[in-house]
């Protein structure tokens, strides 16, 4: 067996190709999973935005979709179930020059991670949150999720769910998110545009993606979504109209809107508002440690 030959090292940023963003391993999702489309759309968006791999950090929680960071060649973190946004906030504040993209599922983000979801939105942390919403718990083999529709039969609701689902779109709009969009794995080109807008947006951006689970969700399938989804951009929706955004966000049934529901650019992000980040010293993570003798003297003076 011969040792693997390392590719020639370059000390200059290489020419970016779509290949650049391919991770070290291939996804182990079920064939036909909606998440493949999300991964491809994210890689395309990163490529089209010209982001160097070391300038981005993709952060996930736990679940089928949360395996995504390992499939993208950027810095990545595959954290705990429900905690991606809390970790990501720490990453953004530690190094506010990184583009941070969070990814995960509906159970991860709207269920166990619900508290962080609400508070990360109200803080308007400058990051992109992609939720691969398949309305089911896939990795645990098919239980009800926070977005499972009422009446849905799953392994944990054999007689049909009696609970109302979360509707993440209006929730995000009133929760303080400043970019709220929805995409569908069956419309990849549209999804790329939603992602690019989200990554470029300054503030908290949610993209909820209908990403069908072909194994455990027999109700909300590609076939079910395909005739129903209608692209807001093709319908002249104004994403600065709050009431219209809420109204379209609640729409469900024969016609389900996808696209950019809501965007506002008048709110500063958490990072903008924290003076500690604006001292021209770069990211906190790379600043010298410790305090000066003058500062120490001042601290001691307070004790005397």
């Amino acid at each position, binding site marked *: 067996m011969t040792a693997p030959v*390392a590719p*020639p*090292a*370059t*000390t*200059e940023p*290489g020419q970016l190709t779509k290949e650049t963003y391919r*991770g*070290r*391993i291939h996804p*182990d999702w079920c064939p036909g999973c909606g998440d493949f489309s999300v991964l491809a759309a994210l890689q395309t968006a990163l490529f089209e935005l010209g982001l*160097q*791999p*070391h*300038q981005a*950090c*993709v*952060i996930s929680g736990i679940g089928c979709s949360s*395996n995504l*960071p*390992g499939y993208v*060649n950027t*810095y*990545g973190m*595959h*954290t*705990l179930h429900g*905690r991606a946004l*809390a*970790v*990501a*906030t*720490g*990453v*953004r*504040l*530690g*190094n506010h020059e*990184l583009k941070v993209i969070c990814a995960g599922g509906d159970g991860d983000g709207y269920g166990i991670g619900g*508290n*962080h979801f609400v*508070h990360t939105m109200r803080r308007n942390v400058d990051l992109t949150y992609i939720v691969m919403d398949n309305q089911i718990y896939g990795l645990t083999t098919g239980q009800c999720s926070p977005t499972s529709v009422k009446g849905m039969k799953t392994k944990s609701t054999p007689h049909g769910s009696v609970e109302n689902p979360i509707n993440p779109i209006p929730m995000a709009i009133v929760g303080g998110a400043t970019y709220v969009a929805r995409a569908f794995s069956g419309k990849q080109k549209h999804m790329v545009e939603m992602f690019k807008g989200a990554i470029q947006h300054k503030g908290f951006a949610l993209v909820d993606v209908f990403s069908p689970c072909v194994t455990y969700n027999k109700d909300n399938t590609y076939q079910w979504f395909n005739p129903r989804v209608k692209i807001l951009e093709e319908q002249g929706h104004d994403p600065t109209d709050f009431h219209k955004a809420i109204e379209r966000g609640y729409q469900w049934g024969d016609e389900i809107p996808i696209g950019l529901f809501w965007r506002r650019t008048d709110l500063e992000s958490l990072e903008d508002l924290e*003076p*500690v980040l604006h001292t021209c010293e*770069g*990211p*906190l*993570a*790379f*600043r*010298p*440690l*410790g*305090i000066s*003798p003058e500062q*120490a003297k*001042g*601290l001691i003076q307070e*004790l*005397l």
Partner: protein
Amino acid sequence: MNKIDFAVGIGGENGQGIASTGNILALIFARRGLHLNAYNAYQSIIRGGHTFLTIRASNGPVRNMGDQIDVFIPLNQDTMDRHLHLLKSGACAIYDKDKVTPGKAADGVQLCAMPMKELTKGNKLAVNTAALGATLQLLGIESEPLETVISRQFKKKGDAVVAENLAIARAGYDYAAQNFAAFSWKAPRGAKPLGIITGNQTIAMGGAAAGVKFYAAYPMSPSTGVLMWMAAHARELGIMVRQVEDEIGVMNMVIGAAHTGCRAMCATSGGGFALMSEAVGMAGMIETPIVCIDVQRAGPATGVPTKTEQGDLWQVLGAGQGDYPRVVVAPTNQLDLFHTIPELFNLCDKYQCPGLVLSDLLISEGTTSIDPDDLNFQVKIDRGELILPNGNGNGANPASGYNDKTYLRYKNTPSGISPRAVPGVPGYIFTAATDEHDEDGTLISDEFTNPQKRRMMVEKRARKMQGAIKDIAPPKLFGPEKADVTLVGWGSTAGVIREAVEKLAGEEGIVANQLAIKWIVPLHAAEISAILGRSKNVILVENNQSGQFARYLRSETGFAAHGHIRKYDGEPFMPHHIVEAVKAQLAGQTRLSVPVHEVNA
């Protein structure tokens, strides 16, 4: 120079200004150069209830609240009734003659009834000030220091308030001179002026010295003082401080910031730490250094939020599922907290693991005198094999291309330590995963066929502690090598046990020595076994019911202590509790002593 040691006790309802009165007194003593220790026994209510502050001062070292009160200031009847019986001959009680009636006091206790309405001209809020004046008179301290501190304390409230309080302090001072007998001794002076500080402040300052750039917390007594110090100094020192929605978010956010290369820290109490514990395991798994302080309070559940205990040892030892390396340390006093935080950050950076500090209400909220020269902020910083984009890390940057995908973040090395790049460095792309992963960070948890790799990674992480123990000082025996009894404690009890050892020798003719244990994980089991193996009688002293450290000691060394002194009523040990228990155990009366806290219920 004769050692003079005295204590002032002030009690009343929450909201009667006991803390600020105590602060004035502590500052006066410290500026005089006296060493001091102040402990506030209080309740979890903002107004009402009972709170009792003990300030003990001396020209020699003061390591705990002591055994007796010399000046007793009951601001209400309730306080008088609860504490008067504890005063011994020579002590005095200062009180408002119109509001408070003394009960039966011991012979030789001076009852100093003051006409407070007259002295304060009816200002009920200024009774404390008049009592302070009288206290200084009895202690033989001149009035100028009181005037200086009062002027500073009330400055914000305007000149009129300052003038009024100065007049009232002077009235109290003069009234005491004319009507009461001063102590036969005078409060001494120390070598140089000292400051005052709490343990929560030393934790925060230790963090600042270590270079903490990110601090997050959810308010929880008795750890909130760290958050308040950090928030007040954040902008001046360039520290990002966040109050987070819950402790789960706190620990995850701290890990996120630490992952980018910041030194990141958080403090909480047992309940908050319970919420953090899964994420502490993440820090272990993705090998991200963080420091978390658990300021213990009496548990379980909500427990007694304003009372002290050493009840979280096993929680911290077992935090998070699975095996992973962690460093656990229980500093022994406020100054030790200051020195330990930077040392722990160095260890955590070097071994890329979480560092957990066990403080408690006693030392975190307790005030001590501090010599400014002992607070050296220019500490040694060792960041281990860290790779930063600007070369500020001291890890070697092996030549690597921009996007060559060859970096092994979790490289299996003889030390278990792998070179650690952070996001933002070109050419070191990797994913940090909480799933078990290979050397390059890719998941092996989904692989059916890889028990060898799993074992390799578990052992790689575990191996780091073999190096860490060499960087940690083993505990040392205090006192004579040969003794009748060896008192073992951990963390904050070191000071009170030390005094008990001295009292046993000085007053009871019992030769005792002391083994104070600070570094809990990794534990110097061999050294501890050797020391304790030479002792004929080992008594373990701890502030909990089940003997948590006794069990840990037995699990790590096989050594079972001969006797136990345990206190779990929410209040800390006083020296006489330990002295009396040791006497009873040496007399063969018991092997488990549970000292009674003597305040009337």
